């Protein structure tokens, strides 16, 4: 068994494709530029982040002021900050789109399981890096977003058996650096924010070194377009500051960065323990989907159930985001609607899957069996007679 596992792993390792560098020959299809954009925006974010570190002051008293200074006083500070923020947004958008592409086109199937798992894990890490990053501004949104996310972990203590160890509180406590959000939290988030990106970049550089793949397949034109996009965006929409964090005043409604909004709406709808378990199950589904989906085909129509689940996830992401942006939710009513819709959609996916498989089986049965050689030779005679 050990031997089989090692074999599985070495095959996947050889076929590893982290930034779409082996999938296609030419990079003129924007769908297959996404991996390159991920790598490019990552470099932009790290470079601008290091520049920001020069002026940023990681204290509860000074953080907000130091960012105000970066934004308004320091020459080109607005540009560096804009590149950092919008570069990170571009990174997350590119990873997300790439995940959806791989999902709907069945690219996570053999031999790409490991690539898919690394990509999916990197989305989770990028989101954690984003969350820890925007706390550093120490504005209202950051403060409350971090508080909500960290308090969710406390409810894991309600789990039977595992809860006895109070590991949920331990997680919250380790991230908070104390019983409440304060200087300890800021310091730890600063470390995590920097640590995640840089450690992963070192691993990726090692990967490029050992596989001897080309780092960059972006054409100069695409590169310039992306850079100009970032500069223009940070010029027209300067990265916002929000209000200074006030621990005694909750904003209405409480919002976080765009990729967490749907999750926030989900937290509104569910009892606290499920608010913690739900995202965990979602991540587990994402990581394990190559092993759950054993169908042969790669096209969306050849595996209806997983296509339906993917469309449902995308729809929920968009709808929940819209709901929280406009602050419309009736807590007593909406969760039931969502549950019923989910059950109906999953049933639909299941029915479609069964129907598709039946059709395939029927088609297989209707196909003429490959006849023995002698019979093939004998066949032309009756057809010519007709």
């Amino acid at each position, binding site marked *: 068994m050990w031997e089989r596992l090692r074999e599985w792993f070495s095959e996947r390792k050889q076929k590893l494709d982290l930034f779409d560098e082996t999938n296609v020959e030419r990079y003129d299809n924007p769908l297959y530029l996404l991996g390159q954009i991920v790598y490019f925006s990552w470099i932009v974010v790290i470079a601008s982040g290091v520049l920001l570190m020069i002026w940023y002051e990681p204290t509860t008293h000074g953080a907000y002021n130091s960012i105000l200074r970066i934004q308004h006083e320091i020459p080109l500070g607005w540009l560096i900050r804009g590149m950092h923020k919008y570069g990170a947004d571009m990174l997350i958008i590119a990873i997300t789109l790439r995940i959806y592409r791989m999902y709907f086109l069945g690219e996570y199937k053999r031999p790409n399981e490991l690539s898919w798992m690394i990509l999916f894990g990197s989305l989770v890490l990028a989101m954690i890096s984003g969350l820890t990053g925007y706390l550093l501004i120490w504005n209202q949104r950051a403060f409350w977003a971090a508080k909500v996310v960290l308090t969710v972990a406390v409810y894991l203590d309600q789990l039977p058996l595992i809860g006895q160890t109070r590991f949920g509180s331990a997680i919250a406590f*380790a991230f908070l650096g104390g019983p409440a959000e304060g200087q300890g939290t800021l310091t730890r988030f600063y470390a995590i924010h920097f640590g995640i990106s840089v450690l992963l970049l070192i691993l990726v550089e090692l990967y490029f070194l050992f596989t001897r793949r080309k780092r960059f397949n972006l054409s100069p034109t695409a590169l310039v377009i992306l850079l100009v996009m970032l500069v223009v965006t940070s010029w027209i929409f300067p990265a916002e500051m929000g209000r200074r964090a006030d621990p005694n005043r*909750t904003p209405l409604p409480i919002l976080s960065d765009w990729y967490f909004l749907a999750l926030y709406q989900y937290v509104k709808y569910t009892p606290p323990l499920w*608010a913690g378990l739900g995202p965990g199950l979602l991540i587990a589904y994402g990581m394990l989907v190559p092993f759950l989906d054993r169908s042969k085909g790669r096209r969306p129509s050849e595996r209806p159930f997983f296509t339906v689940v993917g469309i449902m996830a995308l729809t929920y992401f968009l709808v929940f985001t819209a709901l929280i942006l406009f602050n419309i*939710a009736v807590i007593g009513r909406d969760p039931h609607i969502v549950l019923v819709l989910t059950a109906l959609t999953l049933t639909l996916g299941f029915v479609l899957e069964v129907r598709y498989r039946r059709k395939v089986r029927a088609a297989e049965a209707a196909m003429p069996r490959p006849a023995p050689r002698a019979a093939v030779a004998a066949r032309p005679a009756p057809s010519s007679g007709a």
Partner: protein
Amino acid sequence: MAEEQKAKDVNRRTFLQVVASIPALGALAAFAAPLLRYLKPNLDPGLGVPQGRFPPDLIEGDLPRGEPLPIARVEELSEPWSSKFFVFTQKYPQYTPEQARAFTVPGVAIKLPWKVRFPGYREGKEPTDIVVFSRICPHLGCIFNYVPDWREITAGYGGYMPPPERRHGLLGCPCHLSIYDPADRDLPGRVLSGPAPRPPRYFVYEVRNEVIVVTAVEPGGIA
């Protein structure tokens, strides 16, 4: 005979490998354990202390404390549904030069038109018409508001329509739209709507010379 010997050799090698790996793993664990401890802040969690592990006086000593805080005169809260906000300072024992680190707990005192058994007033033995709640939402720690006009709840706090007997001042959390009834006769702070798992935490208060004095906050919870 020779083959038997060979089999024995292999066994011995495996045996030695196992025997050697046990202390090696132990050493690794001993090395890793302090790293986990490194993540734990040097602060009392204030999350409640596991029962039966420490002598009671030690637990007493480690619970968060605060100075008694006069929050309002009784005549300030004479009108039904009038309220007073305040901020209570809770102190956690900590290994710092000051020996204690302060955290603030915002609270609200509300005057009710009827009397309820409130656990913060003489341990709920006597009914009272003044309730004092911590404004930290027991759901995910946001600071919630006292909303004297219930119509505001139906507009900005998630569209909850209270039944006729509850159309009065309510507590509403803007984060995740939990609604509490501070004036519930059986359980002040009962959850009416939203994901909150329990009523908000209460303050222990007493009335000294016509002044409402808050002395402690119900322990537990992370803020």
